[in-house]
C-alpha cells in the first residue's frame, strides 16, 4: 500500500468513484426530500454531513499507505476505547487505561513490522498479533499486583481486558489487513459493506419496521430492519465481486455477505448492551448525528476479525 499503488489499483479507483457517487446520490435524495416533498430531514442531514467528512478521511488514510492506515485504525481503536473508558469510569484508573493503550500500540507495531526471523511471508507479524491478548491480559493482571491493591480491581481489570480485546485487538484486525496482498479489496469492501449494512438496517427499520428485534437491548431495532440489511449485505459481494481475488466463487461471496450482514448487526447490538447497562445514550459526542466514535465503528469491531479469518481461509492473506 502506498499512494503510488493506490493510484495504480483499479480496486481503489473504483471504490473512490463508488463512494463519491453514493455520497452524491444520498445528498441529492435528501435535498429532494427536503426541497420538493417538504420532509423534515434535519437529523439525517447532520448524520449525512458527518459522513462527508468521515468517508474521505478513511479513504485518504488508505491512500496514504500502509503505515498511515495502521496509525489510522489504531487511533480509531484507541479513541473508541477512550469512549468506553469514559463511559464505564475506567478512565480514572490511569494504570489500567495506560496498559490498554500500550496494548493498542502493540497491535499497531505487530501489524507494521516483519517477523524477526523471516518465518512469515510479507509484512506484519501475525503470530504475535494473534497472541497479543495473552500478553496484554498478563500485563493487566500485573497492575494490581505491582500496586498492591485489591479493592475494585476485579472490575477495573475486567473492563480493561474487554477494552483491549474488543476495541483494541478485534478492531485492530483492520490494521493487520493492510498487509494482505489484496489489502485494498478487502479493506475497502469491509468498510464500505459494513457501513452500508448499518445504513440499510436503519433505512429498512424506518420504512418497514414493526416487530422489535431485541426489545430490551435496542428498542428501535426491528426484524424488518435486520432482514433488509441482511438482504443488502448478501447482495453486495456479488455487486462488488471485483474486490475479491479470483477464484471467488458463490461460497466465498455468500460467506462474505453473511459475515457482514450478521456480524454487523451483532456488533451494533453488542455496543447497545454496554450502553444499556451503563445507562448512557451515546458513547460520546464527537460525530454530530452519530454520537461517539464507538457508535460509528461498533459493527466494524465485530465484523473485522471474522472477515479477516474468512479472507485468510479463502487463500493465503500475504504473498512472499
Amino acid at each position: 500500500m502506498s499512494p503510488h499503488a493506490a493510484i495504480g489499483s483499479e480496486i481503489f479507483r473504483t471504490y473512490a468513484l463508488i463512494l463519491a457517487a453514493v455520497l452524491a446520490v444520498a445528498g441529492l435524495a435528501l435535498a429532494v426530500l427536503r426541497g420538493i416533498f417538504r420532509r423534515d430531514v434535519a437529523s439525517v442531514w447532520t448524520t449525512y454531513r458527518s459522513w462527508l467528512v468521515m468517508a474521505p478521511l478513511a479513504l485518504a488514510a488508505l491512500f496514504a499507505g500502509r503505515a498511515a492506515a495502521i496509525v489510522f485504525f489504531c487511533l480509531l481503536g484507541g479513541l473508541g476505547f477512550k469512549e468506553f473508558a469514559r463511559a464505564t469510569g475506567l478512565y480514572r484508573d490511569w494504570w489500567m487505561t495506560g496498559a490498554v493503550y500500550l496494548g493498542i500500540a502493540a497491535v499497531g507495531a505487530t501489524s507494521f513490522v516483519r517477523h524477526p526471523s523471516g518465518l512469515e511471508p510479507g509484512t506484519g507479524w501475525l503470530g504475535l498479533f494473534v497472541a497479543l491478548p495473552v500478553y496484554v491480559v498478563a500485563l493487566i493482571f500485573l497492575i494490581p499486583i505491582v500496586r498492591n491493591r485489591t479493592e475494585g480491581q476485579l472490575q477495573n481489570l475486567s473492563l480493561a481486558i474487554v477494552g483491549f480485546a474488543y476495541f483494541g485487538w478485534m478492531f485492530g484486525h483492520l490494521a493487520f489487513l493492510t498487509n494482505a496482498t489484496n489489502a485494498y479489496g478487502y479493506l475497502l469492501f469491509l468498510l464500505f459493506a459494513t457501513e452500508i449494512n448499518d445504513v440499510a438496517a436503519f433505512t429498512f427499520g424506518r420504512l418497514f419496521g414493526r416487530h422489535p428485534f431485541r426489545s430490551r437491548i435496542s428498542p428501535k431495532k426491528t426484524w424488518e430492519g435486520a432482514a433488509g440489511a441482511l438482504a443488502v449485505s448478501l447482495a453486495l459481494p456479488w455487486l462488488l465481486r471485483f474486490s475479491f481475488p479470483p477464484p471467488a466463487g458463490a461460497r466465498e461471496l455468500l460467506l462474505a455477505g453473511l459475515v457482514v450482514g450478521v456480524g454487523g448487526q451483532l456488533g451494533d447490538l453488542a455496543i447497545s448492551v454496554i450502553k444499556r447497562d451503563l445507562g448512557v445514550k451515546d458513547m460520546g459526542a464527537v460525530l454530530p448525528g452519530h454520537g461517539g466514535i464507538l457508535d460509528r465503528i461498533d459493527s466494524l469491531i465485530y465484523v473485522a476479525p471474522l472477515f479477516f479469518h474468512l479472507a485468510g481461509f479463502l487463500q493465503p492473506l500475504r504473498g512472499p
Partner: protein
Amino acid sequence: MTWTYQPAADLDQPMIERLRRFPREPDMTVYALRSLAALVLRGWLRLYHRLEIAGRERLPDGGSFVLVANHASHLDALCLLAALPLRALHRAFPAAAEDYFFRSVPRTAFAAIVVNALPFGRKTHIRQSLALCRRLLDNPGNILILFPEGTRTATGAVGPFKPGIGLLLAGTDIPALPCRLSGSFEAWPRGRRLPRPRRVRLQIGEPRRFAAFPAGAASADAVAEALRAAVLALPA
C-alpha cells in the same frame, strides 16, 4: 457483587464544551499535553525572559493554598505555574476571565489544556465563581492562582485589589502566599501582540492566614488591602 459504574459527567458533550466546564474531568491526553507544554514554557521563560524565582521554599508542602499576585501581562500565570513542582501542575488552577479566555475555541483550548484555568465570571456571576474557588480549596492539595486586580494593569502600577479575595479568605485557615511579579509589564504590556525579551522576576512571600478576620463582606476589603500591601512589600 454489584459493580458501580461512574461514567464521566461530561460524556454527552463535545470536546470544546468539556474544556469549558469546571471542574473538568481528568483526561490522560490533556494531562500529557499540559505536561509537555509546561516543559516547553518553562524552558522558554527561563531562556527568553531570564525568569528568576525567589521564595520557592515558602510553598506549603501539603494542603491547599492560594497564590495571590499582581497582574501585568499574560505571562504572569505562566510564571506562577513555573514556580510549582511539575507534579502539582494538574492541581494548580489560575483563575482566568471567563469572558476573555473561554469564548473562542483556540483561547478555550489554551486556557483549559495548557494553563488549566478556572473560568472566573468576573462580570456576570462572581459569587458562583467564588463558591467554585472555595470548593476547590476544600479539597486538599489544590492550588488556586488569583490576580485580585481582576485585570492586567494598563500603566505598570499595581491597581486596587477587588474584595472577592477577601470574601474567599476571611475567617478561613487557607494559607495565601503574596507573590510579586516584576518585569512582566515591560515584557508584554497590554496591547502588544508578542512579548519582548525582558527579564521577569517572581518573588514569593510568606504564607498569610486570615482566620482572625470575621467571615463575610465586612472584612473583605480589609483582607484585600492587607494582601495588596503584602504583595507591594515584597522586593521587586
